[in-house]
């Protein structure tokens, strides 16, 4: 009985450590397949309807994973969006930049995905407060296989 309880306790501790490791992937051990680095958000007034955050996602694992969502305590709603070039480039004014929400973006095994201006970005809708330069906000990216990864994103002017 006593031994059994100790074993259970040990398992819980091991699981908690594993969970912690997964959550703090900015300092993730090399064994973590998917990692999120260089996360930053563009400074914004809280009155702006939405702000954008960016990061680099690297998949060092042997199987593909996919970004399927995001959340942050800094905003009421968080969506993954992609800015796309629209229209024919040979057309009179070249084309337009449009934007669409993305439900799932695959990150191939051994590949990476850069969330950057003019491309994929995390859209923070309904900011809780101003994003001031020097602040950091918490950003959680949800992956299909790896699960959630939470990182600190620096607020930068550009």
């Amino acid at each position, binding site marked *: 009985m006593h031994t059994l309880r100790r074993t259970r306790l040990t398992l819980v501790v091991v699981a908690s450590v594993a969970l912690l490791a997964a959550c703090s992937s900015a300092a993730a051990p090399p064994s973590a397949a998917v990692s999120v680095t260089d996360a930053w958000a*563009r400074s*914004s*007034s809280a*009155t*702006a*309807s*939405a*702000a*954008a955050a960016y990061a680099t996602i690297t998949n060092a694992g042997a199987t593909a994973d996919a970004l399927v969502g995001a959340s942050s305590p800094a905003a009421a*709603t968080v*969506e993954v*969006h*992609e*800015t*796309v*070039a*629209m*229209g*024919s*480039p*040979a*057309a*009179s*004014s*070249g*084309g*337009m*930049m*449009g*934007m*669409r*929400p993305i*439900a799932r*973006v*695959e990150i*191939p095994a051994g590949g990476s995905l850069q969330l950057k*201006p*003019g*491309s*994929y*970005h995390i*859209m*923070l*809708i*309904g900011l809780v407060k101003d994003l001031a330069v020097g602040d950091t906000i918490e950003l959680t990216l949800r992956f299909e296989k790896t699960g959630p990864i939470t990182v600190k994103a620096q607020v930068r*002017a*550009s």
Partner: protein
Amino acid sequence: MTSPSRPSSPNRLPVIASVVFAIAAAGGIGVGLLGVALGGPPATPAGDGRIAWPAATPDPLKRPTAIVPVVPAPALVLTDQDGRPFDLASARGTPALVFFGYTHCPDVCPTTLADVRDAVRRSQVPVRVVFVTIDPARDDAAALKQYLSFYNAGFVGLTGTAAEIRRTADAWGVQFARMDNGSANGYAMAHTADAFLVDAAGRLRDRIWFGAGPDVFVDRIASLAARPIPGDGASPGPVASPPALATPAATPLAAASPSGSPLAAASPSGTPAVGSTTVLPTLTTTVIRIGANRLVMTVADPNNRELAFPDVTAHFTFRDTDAAAPSIAVDGYFIWVSVGNKGAFVVDVVFPVPGAWTGTIALQKSTGPIGAADFPFSVVNRGATPAIGDPAPSIHTPTAADPNAGENLYGITTDVYPDPRFYQFSVDQLLAAHRPFVLTFYSPAYCPTTACGPLLKNMKAIADEFPDVAFVHVEPHAMTNYGGRLMPDYSTGQLEFNDLAKAYGIPVEPFVFVVDAAGRVAASFELIVGSDEIRAAIRAATGGGA
């Protein structure tokens, strides 16, 4: 930019309508590079189907996007964020950066605003920054003021009525379209994201691509002074070489034309006189073949002032370069491309032989001749589209009955306010039923030409007038149904025509076919078409009904 668009190159769309010829036609280099910036040759589809941006240019500062020849900036007369009238023309003396966006824009606009904010801070030359909303429904003066003050309270934010904004954007060659994409942020606005650099004399000098970064802005502002304009005076007067796009070799016949000019020789009776205005014609029609044709031409002067008006008459003459056929003299007629804003002349002409032809357009007012110009073009044996009298190809076009149409029809059309009448019957059903119909190819959301907007409104009004005629709208591009909404399939990095458009061989959009009860093409209209022309064609095809 080196040859007229031909049907064989479906992605080379001629510049038309109220797109600023100053930018588009004159600024061949600027336009070409815009293509590069927005998904032209270097932008390649990545493995996951998204657009990969071109790799960093070795020296982006040196990327040539200057507008050559220099032209006056288009009109920019709107209301600023304090509710005061603003006119860019009265703000001369300081260079200005003009770009378009909207305050609900989280990625593109803040990127440009941050670049510009940093550039203005570092620039040795003072520069006025003008942000024009393309979302006047949400961006009133107060919203703009709040949004811009976060970047620089000195930035000018402009708004206006929906009509004013559309007119302004058209004048600058800026496209925009609402995208109801289901985001919690509300609808998004797709828009041209380039910034325009206007010099202190009010001339459009450079077009800076999205994502260029602050260094490029600083460099381009500084180099305004370092890039003198040939024959530069204080005024933004007439400029060097004439703009010409669809008709690159167009030759304006100036007032001082020798009396033996081709115009004088071939002009219709009694109008050999050539006016004093340099006329720059743009032939927007790309399918020109043996037999009956309808050519559409827009005309402007070197200052990009519109020359097509209802009180102007246009006389056309056409000469076969090989002189195998006698020359043809015929009067054109005026149509509005955008009512009160931009006009064009249409000429119905029958070409007896194929090959190289030269046209001359001579414009005249009741007060006397305005000016004339030559334009070369080719006549082909058969175009890719069905000719007048040909059987209309039988295709299944999307209808509301299709399982993927969706409740609001967004699965088969990009029209934000789809009219169910246009998705009631498929073309093959109508042909089988021997019903006359009007088939329109264009994409309300993704049409790359400004001729589509007016057409969409006009076709719905025309459909009201002809209840016995079927109307069919078809999206001409390869699209994917994304969460119940159509998005272009960018697998090649750009818009591609789909099989339905290919079945009709259309080289551009919009394209309208009027088909009679016998299933034969009774009329077709490429790109620019007046509502009255469509009405007349329907009446002719249906034996005068309505």
